[in-house]
């Protein structure tokens, strides 16, 4: 009897723990969505959505997140082109199923790998930088200093960063896909001369409008998630410097988890 009770208690404990964790995760996601929605609402509340002060922040974010990440994304794109695209094209030449391989490549490299790898680069580079930047400003009282001048923190800090990161994520993912696919084709051409024009045509034919729209939505969402979590955690820093690395680490981990979860959900929906 006592054993059965203790077992029931143990199972109850496991269920309770799982329930509490699920509620906490659900609460966190709702809070995060609320934070992003509020940021966009505050931004849209103004007649002219951008002014010189906030536009400067947007340009800065696009340059830092997008332009500065180009060398790394180029390198990764070429590495994927060499390791996956060119290998699969070789296989296609051997097996003669070029259309299937072109479909597979646009789906795996063009749609999936380009989005995910770009998102990982952005989380590591920009997500962490945004969280540290905002957290430090919060610690030094700079954020409050601006609030006391009637400046809306959401409008000034958060929205430009989210929009900048979303634009940069989408543009970089397109760039990554082009480098990885076309780079792979040209690398393959070194081994099988004269095949590139034909393969490029097949790859272009494999890209459909539905896939393109989904790609666009997914990458814009990834950008929103990356900058949204980074801003959310950066602004969570209150008064102790020890909170800064803690919140930065949470921004990175949460960003990764949410990007992969979103990718999985979108793959299921597609």
């Amino acid at each position, binding site marked *: 009897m006592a054993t059965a009770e203790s077992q029931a208690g143990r199972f109850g404990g496991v269920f309770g723990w799982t329930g509490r964790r699920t509620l906490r995760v659900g609460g966190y996601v709702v809070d995060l969505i609320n934070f992003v929605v509020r940021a966009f609402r505050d931004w849209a509340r103004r007649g002219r959505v951008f002014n010189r002060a906030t536009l400067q922040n947007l340009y800065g974010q696009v340059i830092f997140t997008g332009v500065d990440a180009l060398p790394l994304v180029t390198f990764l794109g070429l590495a994927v082109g060499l390791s996956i695209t060119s290998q699969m094209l070789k296989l296609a030449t051997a097996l003669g199923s070029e259309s299937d391989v072109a479909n597979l490549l646009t789906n795996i490299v063009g749609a999936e790998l380009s989005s995910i790898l770009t998102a990982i680069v952005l989380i590591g580079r920009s997500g962490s930088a945004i969280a540290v930047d905002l957290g430090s400003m919060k610690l030094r009282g700079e954020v409050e200093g601006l609030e006391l*001048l*009637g400046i809306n923190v959401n409008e000034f800090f958060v929205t430009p960063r989210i929009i900048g990161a979303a634009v940069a994520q989408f543009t970089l993912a397109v760039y990554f896909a082009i480098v990885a696919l076309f780079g792979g084709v040209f690398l393959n051409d070194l081994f099988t001369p004269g095949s590139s024009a034909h393969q490029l045509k097949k790859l272009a034919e494999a890209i459909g409008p539905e896939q393109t729209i989904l790609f666009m939505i997914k990458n814009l969402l990834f950008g929103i998630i990356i900058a949204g979590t980074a801003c959310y955690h950066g602004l969570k820093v209150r008064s102790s410097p020890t909170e800064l690395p803690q919140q930065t680490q949470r921004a990175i981990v949460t960003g990764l988890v949410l990007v992969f979860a979103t990718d999985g959900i979108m793959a299921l929906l597609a």
Partner: protein
Amino acid sequence: MNAAPLIEAEDLRPMREDGGAFEHGLSCQISAGRVICLVGPNGGGKTAYLRALAAVDPPASGKLKLFGQEASRLGFESRRAMRLKAAFIAEGAPLLSVVTGLSNVTLPAMYHRLGHALEIRASAEETLKFLNYPGRDDLLPAYLNQHERLLLAIARCLMLSPQLMFLDEPFHMTDSACRQRESDIYVRLARERGLAVLLATHNLGFVKRYADEILFLHPSGTARFAGWKPFVDSGRAEVNAFFDAAA
């Protein structure tokens, strides 16, 4: 004819960091063109009372009217508009670290769209001239000294044409020459521009020379004095104890 007071506080009790209320309420009326000093020993709550008077932090209890409006009933936009008229400079005068000194001064006016970029820039340069700003304005705040940072913080507030200016420990970490220049600025802001300037300070030299009113904040109570002489002559035990500790 007396103008309406800018601040009307009635039994205002700020919130402590632990969520409780300060024991003693503060009642006062502050008019334009006055220099008001909040003084008292450490732990008396100078910063907390200053923040409550500026409607930066919500009070635990009591009433506060700023520019004739109940502060607790202000909506989102009214609160934002009120912040333009009631400038608050926290201890250390934090500036935005990622932009230059001049950009810090022009940024709030740009954000609130108070004019074209060239007009705002010209106005910022004029304000820095009024403040006798001695430093470079093309450097990031990290490369400026505390006096220069404070002047930039004052300048960026003045760009919004406030009627009230709250300063928390403005003489913190500045030498005596800078303190004198800063004192002159506060007095000019009150006398020439008609601002009500409220300072929480330990600088009794400034209080003695320039304070039109003194709000004395002590763990055993709050008191209001119409200048230095009534403050010194009050004969109150806590005032005498404060002077003994300061000496």
